[in-house]
């Protein structure tokens, strides 16, 4: 079997856009199938009469369905990598007929103390009217390059590459920067100095500006539990 093309951290830069995934229009059959697949028959999703009685214009999609789209979008992109974290906030309900586009942008590249590499991405989905339906962030674990993959698969010490944007910090579901409580311990082998362990606020400004222009509707979720995890 041919080895599929892989994504390596080496090829990514902060600000890179992920290839957009446009899903086919959601219909009631897909919503019903998803209800079956998750064994969750909440009438709001499968019973038109019950949904209307509850004041809804029609049935609507389970939140986990667009969440599944995001997982597909990210896993397809991370070919050879692993989706390790996915956090989203649902901004708008998703209706039969909606065509969702899943989008993302590279926020940061990181290496942990064990020499594993991660990419943090901002993610969001829009419907056919260009309205934001969900937003959040995600983390994928990748190899730095083919050499790093070979070494790690053999159980050798990982390649310690200088990830120059390592100083970029991940953000939580609310888009706020999550600052590590303590600086990550420096790996012994990484003797070369990583100069910008603490970025000036200026460094983050372009990333913030380049976020999607949409302002999420602030009614779906509470502001209280902002910094979970």
């Amino acid at each position, binding site marked *: 079997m041919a080895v599929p093309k892989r994504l390596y951290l080496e090829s990514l830069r902060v600000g890179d856009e992920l290839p957009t995934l446009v899903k086919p229009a959601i219909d009631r059959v897909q919503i019903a199938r998803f209800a079956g697949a998750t064994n969750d028959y*909440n009438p709001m999703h499968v019973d038109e009469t019950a949904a209307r009685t*509850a004041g809804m214009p029609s049935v609507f999609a389970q939140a986990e369905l667009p*969440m599944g789209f995001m997982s597909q979008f990210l*896993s397809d992109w991370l070919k050879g990598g692993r*989706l390790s*974290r996915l956090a989203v906030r*649902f901004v708008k309900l998703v209706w039969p007929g909606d065509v969702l586009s899943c989008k993302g942008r590279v926020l940061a590249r990181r290496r942990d103390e064990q020499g594993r590499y991660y990419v943090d991405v901002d993610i969001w989905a829009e419907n056919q009217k260009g309205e934001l339906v969900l937003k959040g962030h995600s983390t994928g674990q990748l190899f730095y390059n083919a050499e790093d993959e070979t070494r790690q698969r053999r159980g050798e010490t990982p390649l310690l590459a200088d990830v120059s944007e390592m100083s970029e910090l991940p953000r939580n579901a609310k888009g706020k920067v999550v600052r590590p409580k303590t600086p990550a311990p420096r790996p012994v082998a990484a003797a070369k100095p990583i100069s910008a362990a603490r970025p000036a606020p200026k460094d983050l400004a372009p990333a913030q500006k380049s976020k999607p222009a949409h302002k999420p509707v602030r009614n779906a979720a509470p502001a209280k539990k902002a910094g979970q995890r």
Partner: protein
Amino acid sequence: MVNEVEKGAIRRFAEAVGDNNPLYRDEEQAKAAGYRSLLAPPTFPGTFDGGLDLREVLNIGSRSVLVGEHSLENHQPICAGDRIYVTTRVVDIYEKLGTGGVMDFAVVEDEGRDEKGELFFRTRRTLVVRPTAKTEASAAPATPTPAPH
């Protein structure tokens, strides 16, 4: 509560999402890629049963519930044949005044481990419980029930 990961359940889930990743459908390819069996999609834990009836525990009767936020950490890949022990806990409950009345919120955490206790995943959902059915029943034309559009 133990959840046995079945091949058919993985395939049905991936089909419902419309995700054609061969690792979720073709066992040979999944094995060639180094997995024990068919790989489960990252959001597959959403199908698991934590053995807790949230409607009962939260005492919300027939009120409708929306998911406001959902986060998921995958620590290890889940494959067909795995037996995952899932624990569901309500970690926070609070209320806020919304346009349609008092909205209740519940934060629910799920955790999945194998029989050795190794962590496979952790999820956290913020559930939004809409005001009581009384408000909704009167939601005919001229009521202030917030339209989701």
